[in-house]
């Protein structure tokens, strides 16, 4: 039951539009790059300082001076450009990036996002996540519907320290997709994965959402 990681990424790729500048987070969001429809012009931004991220290099062609925000080796494209991290976050905060797809630990029914810190555990840092959700026009979260112990991750309010307040526009999990028209509207159930019933979904979700 439910969508695989690739299927979640494929669903998230339906958010892409021709001409979009997009920032993809680490994990499932990175997989979205594999599902950009043929012929669609989408420019991927890497927040360390690159527009026009290309695919991973062929073995033997890795360049240590050319990495993405996940510190993976990548390649450049004819459209690519490089810039400083301050120019990069100028793009992000300044609202020049159309779409950010990122992972989450928790999403609140009010659109709050928590994805960087679990108190009592070693904290690695927020990296660029707080800047992305504060500045990018549209924010889509992809995540497992429940944590490993079964706890709902889409819930009335985030309990973990926040990354941003009322910043999430759409939530795509392995079980369902929730979306809202704007940041004042409540989330509405848009789609369920094959085999998932509304009853299942309600049992595994504590956030309030509108029926389709």
């Amino acid at each position, binding site marked *: 039951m439910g969508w695989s990681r690739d299927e979640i990424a494929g669903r998230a790729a339906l958010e892409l539009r021709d001409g979009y500048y997009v920032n993809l987070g680490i994990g499932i969001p990175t997989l979205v790059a594999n599902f950009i429809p043929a012929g669609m012009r989408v420019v991927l931004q890497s927040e360390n300082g690159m527009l026009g991220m290309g695919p991973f290099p062929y073995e033997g062609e890795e360049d240590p001076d050319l990495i993405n925000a996940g510190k993976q080796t990548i390649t450049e494209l004819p459209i690519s450009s490089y810039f400083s991290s301050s120019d990069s976050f100028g793009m992000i905060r300044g609202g020049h990036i159309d779409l950010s797809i990122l992972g989450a630990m928790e999403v609140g029914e009010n659109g709050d996002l928590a994805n960087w810190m679990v108190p009592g555990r*070693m904290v690695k840092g927020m990296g660029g996540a707080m800047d992305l959700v504060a*500045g990018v026009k549209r924010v889509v979260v992809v995540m497992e519907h429940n944590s490993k112990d079964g706890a709902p991750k889409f819930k009335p309010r985030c309990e973990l320290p926040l990354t941003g307040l009322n910043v999430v526009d759409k939530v795509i999990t392995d079980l369902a997709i929730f979306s809202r028209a704007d940041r004042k509207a409540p989330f509405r159930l848009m789609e369920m994965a094959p085999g998932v019933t509304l009853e299942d979904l309600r049992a595994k979700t504590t956030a309030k959402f509108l029926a389709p």
Partner: protein
Amino acid sequence: MSTTTGTVAGPKVYADARSALDGLLRDGITVMSGGFGLCGIPENLILAMRDSGTKGLTVVSNNAGVDEFGLGLLLKTRQIRKMISSYVGENKEFERQYLSGELELEFNPQGTLAERIRAGGAGIWGFYTRTGAGTLVAEGKEQRVVDGDTYVLETGLVADLSIVKAWRGDTEGNLIYRKTARNFNPMMATAGRVTVAEVEELVPTGTLDPDQIHTPGIFVQRIIRGTGYRKPIENRTVRKRPVAGAV
């Protein structure tokens, strides 16, 4: 283009990393160190800082290196008292020192960190940003609401010393970075009271195209040609080469 090295000289040019740091290091100073992960880090200058034994450092750097390379070398020798960073997940020794209370840590969102450094170097005392509003990052900071959005006051950062890495530089201190190795280096070059740059290729003035300079020489007080670059790759990721003749 000329690739002359070794024969270049000038008042800003030093023989090696140790001599370039001579007189600049004191216990307790604040140092900015360029790079993102292990990409574009001043490898030679970090080694010379380790060998100097300078202690109690506050280091501003997006990341903290790995256990055996980059700033991890200065953590291992307990030379760092405090880090100002956005993400430090790749370093076990860092984790140990932080959890035991030996190391102080200030997290800044990556864009806020970049802008604090840019502002510091540009003479801007502070700025308001939406980043971090409503989060732990905003606690204790002045906030303003403009047109319904909450902005957080962040302050500019300057350092006693900035150490940066570029690809090519000339004896005037003009710098050109390569690909994503640019990252935090240009802002840090502007925010150091003294900035020391290391480059892979050091050329005479007149060699670099003035239209292509990323960091103008005014920001660089000392420069060296680095040697023995290792440039480790943290996440080597490749794809399969298509097989010749396959359809």
